């Protein structure tokens, strides 16, 4: 298959216009020695039908969440996504466009981004949101780097209950700009904040699903002039007090739960929000309202002087291509669910997870990892057996039991992180409890 439309005649006519004899002549700037003599070692061409057949074959080597009852979350959640989302983002005008550098040819997309920014602000309780980041982890890392830039300080204090991958990403990004990363347990986080602290970063609900008030962190950070960065799960914000209401400076997060396929980890979409006074420091695109000469409302990217194509090494970030299509998916998802539907989803998740926890805790030997902490729709349990072994045993029953925590926390090899969203039914959770009981004892 080839997507090249040229006919032999086209090529001849074009070469004649250019004034060369062959396409090869156009490549003479490339030293002969560098030009490939042999075809590359990649497989031969396939027609589209065979491409699909081959990939169908590959996908059968997967066991997708359509084929299992899953309680796996840990930052990526299975939700019911209305069919209109894929239908609308698949429209060619959206799918095949790029960054709206020319606003007059891109009003559709620009308006959707403005709507996205508004909705994200609504969820998080913040004043400004950008047009998207790559994902939750890089959004968190960008926030740390921004805090360094804003405060001129070099210490990034990070909660150990922040998603391990987010922490890894911060440890990749922050030291490069001269920061040190200090990790602390939630209970010790406040104490870790001091006059050297550029920012403190935590998660809400945290990696273990706990919902904990960050008021003390916000107060402490204010005292010492550090910024507060909260990584928030967006669907839970349908019922939880938004980070903005606690006075947080920066809210970041992963937008996948907002109608984006899990897709084995990507493409997802990060979000990034700040209080108004930080707007000139934030990474990525922002869309603002404006008008044409006849006063018609229009939208355009704005505060462009923060960005790499204009500010180069002084830019607030190196991000260029972002995750606009997924931000659009999230915007459509939130519109379709609407104020009430969205809240209902969040509530159903919370109710399901609590029901699920209740059933599991009836099993002798199963206990909550954090018995006293409130949780939203995810929770960690301690099992009487190695959690990986339990997970694998349940897989055979068609149940994906959650995430064994051993890989991330050495002392928690017997712990399982379990999520239940609105797609789980009572019967499925009952069966989970039944099967888990069989397996652990």
């Amino acid at each position: 298959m080839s997507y090249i439309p040229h006919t032999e005649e086209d090529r001849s006519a074009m070469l004649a216009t250019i004034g060369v004899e062959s396409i090869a002549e156009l490549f003479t700037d490339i030293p002969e020695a560098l030009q490939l003599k042999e075809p590359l070692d990649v497989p031969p061409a396939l027609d589209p039908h065979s491409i699909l057949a081959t990939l169908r074959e590959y996908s059968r080597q997967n066991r997708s969440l359509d084929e299992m009852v899953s309680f796996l979350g840990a930052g990526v959640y299975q939700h019911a996504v209305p069919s209109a989302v894929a239908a609308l983002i698949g429209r060619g005008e959206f799918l095949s466009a790029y960054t709206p550098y020319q606003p007059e040819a891109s009003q559709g997309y620009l308006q959707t981004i403005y709507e996205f920014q508004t909705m994200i602000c609504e969820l998080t309780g913040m004043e400004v949101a950008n047009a998207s980041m790559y994902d939750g982890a890089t959004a968190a890392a960008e926030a740390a780097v921004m805090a360094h830039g804003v405060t001129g300080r070099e210490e990034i204090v990070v909660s150990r209950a922040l998603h391990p991958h987010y922490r890894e990403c911060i440890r990749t990004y922050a030291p490069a700009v001269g920061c040190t990363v200090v990790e602390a347990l939630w209970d010790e986080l406040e104490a870790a904040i001091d006059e050297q602290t550029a920012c403190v970063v935590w998660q809400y609900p945290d990696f273990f699903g706990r919902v904990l008030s960050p008021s003390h962190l916000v107060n402490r950070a204010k005292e010492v002039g550090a910024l507060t960065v909260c990584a928030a799960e967006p669907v839970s914000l349908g019922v939880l007090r938004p980070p903005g209401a606690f006075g947080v400076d920066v809210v970041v997060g992963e937008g996948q739960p907002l109608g984006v396929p899990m897709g084995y980890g990507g493409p997802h979409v990060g979000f990034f929000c700040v209080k108004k006074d930080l707007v000139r420091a934030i990474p990525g695109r922002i869309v603002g309202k404006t008008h044409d000469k006849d006063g018609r409302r229009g939208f355009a990217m704005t505060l462009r002087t923060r960005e790499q194509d204009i500010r180069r090494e002084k830019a607030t970030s190196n991000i260029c291509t972002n995750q606009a299509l997924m931000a659009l998916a999230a915007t459509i998802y939130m519109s379709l669910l609407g104020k009430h539907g969205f809240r209902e989803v969040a509530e159903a998740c919370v109710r399901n997870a609590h029901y699920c926890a209740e059933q599991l805790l009836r099993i002798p030997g199963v206990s909550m990892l954090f018995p006293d902490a409130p949780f939203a729709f995810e929770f960690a349990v301690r099992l009487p057996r190695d959690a990986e072994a339990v997970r694998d045993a349940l897989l055979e029953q068609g149940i994906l039991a959650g995430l064994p925590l051993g890989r991330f926390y050495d002392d928690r090899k017997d712990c399982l992180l379990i999520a239940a969203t609105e797609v789980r039914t009572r019967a499925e959770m009952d069966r989970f409890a039944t099967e888990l009981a069989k397996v652990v004892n």
Partner: protein
Amino acid sequence: MSDFPLIFECSRPGRRGVRPPACDVPEQPLGELLPSDLLRDEPPALPEVGELDVVRHFTNLSRRNYGIDTGFYPLGSCTMKYNPRVNEEAASSPGFTQMHPLQPDETAQGCLRVMHELQSWMAEITGFDAATLQPPAGASGELLCLLMIRAYHESRGEGEQRKVVLVPDSAHGTNPASAARAGYTVESVRTAEDGGCDIEDLKAKTGPHVAAMMLTNPTTLGLFEKRSVEMNEILHAAGVQVFCDGANMNALVGVARPGDMGFDCMHLNLHKTFSTPHGGGGPGCGCVGVQKHLEPFLPAPVLSRDGERFFWDYDRPQSVGRVHSFFGNFLMNVRAWAYVRAYGREGLPEIARHAVLNANYIMERIRDEFPPAYDRVCMHECVVTASPLKKHGVRALDVSKRLIDYGFHPPTNYFPLIVPEALMIEPTETESKETLDAFCDALLAIAREAREEPDLLHSAPHHAPVGRLDEAWAARNLDVRWSPGERVASNAE
């Protein structure tokens, strides 16, 4: 005509859209499940609209947007080629979309096979020893490369000494921005008369204090850097690592390999060369290739193979860490996989050959009105200047806006920064001669208009959903989110 309403302006209290699944566990008030001070008082003020409202709203918004599917999109440096629909079908299979990134490897062998094949093809196509698909976009790949270079220097005890990254003055903005993000000081290297690197300037700036050079090849001027092998020798002699910005790989695929030119690492934008859709600004899809000596520093986990079994290798003690929440933009990998398989071994070079043919054809056809910035054979894009129109008071921006009236998306303008009134035109190989001719005809007509009726251009576009927008006003009067009551709701859209 009234303004196109925002979705919020369509909202009516109590109106419902899609219903979520009914919750069938025993009813329990939220207040009993969570402490009330952690609950919000009001649900987020999302719009209250019906499903049809939403479908109409976004359908009609899409109709106010230009895409490759509606017309020619010669946005230079962005490789806006046709995004094959078969790739979309492949990537929307539930067997891929419904995969959780934290599933055990045993249940994800299909995904891992796709990624493993793709990463090995990418290494082969670019001529590097290993590749990773973790970076979600080009800039992320740049940063990753610089971090690996940094780790490499550190591993050799030269981390403290090498604090500078050299970047050509023609480079894309992400290059210096990534260098800064990697903790480096940027020094600019001049472009010579012929559009290539000024070797003398390079020599002068190279030294033991330099960590890396970032070189785009073909350059952002659309020219092959003829001296790249020589440059790499000079740089390597001084212990400098050389990164290749592979955004322009569309000019080389199947024809030549940066890995063969002496580069130590490079990034690719699979959303450019390998046709994954740009989606109005993203998702992108990055890929980084490295030579052996940088392999230990690749981001963890590394996708490995043990016979017929694929697995994620987390045991990477020298890894620079992670640049993505999971493994990169996997569903974009599926599309890139499909694209490579479509062309296959024999077909891949045709991409570069026709991309270059198209660019040179345009350059030739418009040169009388829009002369090339550097008068040489170009690669996959041509950078021309609208300077000759300046005497009529017309700028590259005016030409661009007027192109919208002719039904075309404008080229990139004012980049590279070193070319005055730059128009950077990248046609890609998927456009036909007829389309190129129509575009060139439009540009030539606009040049005539510039002489005869320059105001037509100053006030362009005339046939777009809105007229030319006041972007300066937007920056001065920052309004980046809608607020209730901001504006009387309009009746319907």
